[in-house]
């Protein structure tokens, strides 16, 4: 028997360390010697903290939303008496839940299962076998295998991985570099963090194979400093791999040598762009450089450099071990394998999910995610973060594959998937993302530096009820030109949230501008809260919760909101008992 506890950043934040303490105490008090294994993230964010009991038959029982107080019952009833505690059970081997059952795990194959701090756990599950195999192959054969797999970059653009490797391999040069892009700057995205925290060796192994294929002896992981746990586990993993002769000079007695080091970035979104990332690695200000030359021609210190995303690298060992054909067997015509998404927003079951390409957005959101919170109506799903766009309900059957998603005006991106319901204002969403890109623009080129700022100003005035006729056209015009004319991907993709929301939710823009109304009741300047005198039962709950004390009234008389002072926080509406429902928003 074994007990496993999720200690990714997510689990720790949810209180898993306390559960761990309680667990140790409880086991001690019963004099039980059972191994407690830490693990990374299985992806069920909505159920953290998570605890697995793996019984002597190898059956796994997962308990979710565990607190210190629940530990006693689980130990006594399940571990000692052998009866699983149904109340907290969220998944089991015999009875997989829909969240995990619909997923196919390649990049996340070890996440939430192994202890990321023990290389033995990784090798037990076949880890580093792919590297062993790779160094007996020719670099050309490896690249051919990657080509067969159809793997495309998971960092956003979906460029065929084999092609970049091949270019870096064929470009002349004694010294070449492998760079792992772990900048993960999209707000709300945490796919790469989870992989690094939960299965760091898979990335190291992928990088080493890439190094062998292109002829590089050095790899650098560019990781944002805001990921301290990922960095600590990577450092440990590098150390362990070196001790086992899986990294360093003459790996496993071969002529192939490969070292990996970590470079911490300060977390600018633009530093995820590959040429800005290289500038930052070289100690320069993180600003994009002109392409060509591409990194494969002249990258880090002017040498041929291959940059891939964390998830791309995590797929590599699987492909080499299982064969490119097995990978290509999953997915659709143009997009092979699987894709990891960080499912968030107004969704019942949020978390990290890995699905085969080609699955429809509807299946991801409803089958895996369980549908919309509080059974509200689905409005849109945002893919690709600040570079992406909003996909409306009638395109919910769009399959998860690069071309189909691009056709909607959004992008596959690195895996951010934010679900929005009827309470989300689409103009406000566009404003939110533009605010982000405008702040994160490096400021080098005119289109992005000035253009995103001017777009933001227009969006702000629309949200403030000061929109003018013609604003939509003005927005579209700058958006198109910023997209066409910007120097790097940040500016080129920054207009996507604006363009897609105009394309699919134009009437919402029009309501803001022409009728000065926010249909989703979100834009503060355009809504008022009012108390219906017929429904108000003078319970005074709202008056107590109003942060600016602008609700007055007395017993038996309906309460009234002072519109002058109201800051539109919506607290009153929230606290008014549902049986009264006296607060109205208009």
């Amino acid at each position: 028997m074994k007990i496993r506890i999720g200690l990714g950043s997510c689990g720790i934040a949810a209180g898993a360390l306390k559960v761990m303490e309680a667990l140790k105490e409880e086991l001690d008090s019963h004099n039980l010697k059972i191994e407690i294994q830490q693990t990374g993230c299985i992806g069920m964010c909505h159920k953290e903290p998570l605890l697995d009991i793996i019984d002597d038959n190898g059956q796994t029982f997962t308990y979710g939303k565990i607190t210190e107080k629940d530990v006693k019952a689980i130990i006594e009833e399940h571990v000692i008496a052998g009866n699983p505690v149904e109340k907290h059970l969220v998944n089991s081997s015999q009875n997989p839940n829909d969240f995990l059952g619909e997923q196919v795990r390649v990049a996340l194959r070890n996440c939430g299962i192994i202890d990321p701090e023990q290389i033995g756990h990784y090798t037990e599950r076949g880890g580093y076998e792919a590297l062993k195999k790779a160094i007996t192959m020719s670099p050309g054969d490896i690249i051919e295998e990657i080509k067969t797999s159809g793997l495309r970059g998971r960092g956003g653009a979906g460029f065929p991985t084999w092609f970049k490797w091949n270019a870096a391999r064929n470009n002349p040069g004694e010294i070449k570099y492998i760079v792992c892009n772990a900048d993960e700057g999209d707000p709300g995205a945490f796919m790469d963090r989870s992989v690094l925290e939960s299965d760091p060796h898979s990335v190291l192994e992928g990088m080493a194979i890439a190094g062998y294929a292109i002829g590089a002896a050095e790899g650098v992981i560019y990781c944002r400093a805001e990921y301290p746990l990922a960095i600590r586990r990577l450092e440990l993993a590098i150390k362990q791999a070196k001790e086992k002769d899986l990294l360093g000079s003459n790996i496993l007695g071969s002529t192939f040598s490969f070292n990996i080091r970590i470079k911490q970035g300060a977390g600018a979104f633009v530093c995820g762009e590959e040429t800005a990332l290289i500038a930052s690695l070289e100690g320069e200000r993180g600003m994009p450089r002109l392409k060509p030359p591409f990194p494969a021609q002249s990258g880090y210190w002017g040498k041929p450099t291959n940059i891939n995303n964390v998830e791309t690298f995590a797929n590599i060992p699987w492909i080499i071990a299982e064969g490119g054909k097995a990978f290509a067997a999953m997915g659709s015509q143009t997009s092979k394998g699987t894709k990891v998404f960080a499912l968030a927003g107004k969704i019942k079951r949020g978390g990290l999910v890995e699905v085969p390409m080609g699955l429809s957005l509807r299946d991801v959101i409803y089958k895996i995610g369980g549908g919309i919170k509080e059974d509200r109506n689905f409005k849109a799903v945002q893919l690709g973060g600040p570079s992406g766009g909003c996909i409306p309900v009638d395109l919910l059957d769009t399959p998860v594959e690069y071309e189909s998603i691009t056709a909607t005006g959004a992008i596959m991106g690195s895996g951010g998937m934010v679900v929005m319901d009827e309470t989300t204002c689409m103009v406000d969403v566009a404003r939110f993302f533009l605010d982000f890109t405008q702040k994160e623009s490096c400021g080098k080129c005119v289109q992005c530096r000035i253009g995103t700022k001017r777009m933001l100003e227009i969006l702000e005035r629309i949200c403030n009820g000061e929109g003018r006729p013609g604003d939509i056209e003005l927005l579209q015009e700058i958006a198109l030109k910023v997209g066409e004319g910007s120097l790097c991907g940040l500016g080129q993709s920054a207009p996507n949230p604006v363009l897609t929301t105009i394309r699919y939710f134009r009437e919402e823009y029009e309501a803001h501008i022409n009728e000065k109304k926010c249909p989703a009741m979100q834009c503060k300047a355009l809504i008022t809260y009012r108390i219906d005198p017929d429904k108000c039962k003078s319970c005074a709950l709202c008056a107590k919760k109003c942060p600016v004390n602008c609700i007055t009234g007395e017993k038996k008389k309906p309460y009234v909101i002072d519109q002058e002072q109201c800051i539109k926080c919506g607290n009153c509406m929230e606290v008014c008992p549902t049986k009264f429902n006296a607060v109205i928003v208009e």
Partner: protein
Amino acid sequence: MYITINGTDYEVRGESTVLEVAQREGIYIPTLCHHPALEPYGACRLCLVEIIAGGRPGLTASCALPVSEGLVIETDSPRVHHVRQITMKLIMAACPDVPAVMELAEKLGVTDTPYQKASVPNSCVLCGICVRICSKVGTSAIGFAYRGSDRQVMGPWDKTPDTCLGCRACENVCPMGLIKFEEKDGVLIGEPFKSRVTMAKCSECGRFFTGAPMVGTLQQRVGLAVDLCPECQKTKEARLLAHAGGLGRYFNLEKQDH
């Protein structure tokens, strides 16, 4: 090698960019961040042209586009024209009422901008030519600060840049004429970068003539010993020539006061 610009074929020998070829052939492409002494930078986006064939079709910065055989370029297609106008209007919004900007806008047929004008007017178009020339000079005394629309050029932390040589290269190249150096009591004062550079004295006439660090840097980097102001240098050279030409007796080779 032949490339086609606006329907006409041009022969190109050796390496050059589309912008260079166009300039050579008298085809007008507006630029703000291009400087012939510097590498392409691609920041102002005014030089965008359209690739029709021979490359990835679409808009691209001509200052950074190397010519290649069979490249077909339009510098004035409707698409180029449109994006250029918007770019110009964006620059006008960020740098309202700056004469040099207005002049360029007029040349492109743009008279006003529909976008909100910057509340804090700024004349710097952030072409980065000063920063780049300074880095080429080898000191990188000035650089960029802040991101997005807050971007500015300045010395580190907006303080007097301690590596400024007083070479005045930046002053020379700024297309907006925003950088000014002045001599005051043996100190070269450069604005807006807050440069304060002690000057060197001419060993002949005793006048201050350049930043003292310049003298040391020239000596160190190119082995050139400069201890005379340009005028004394000229006189010295003339004297040497005259002497070599047998005219020495017409000159007083003794020290001469100004």
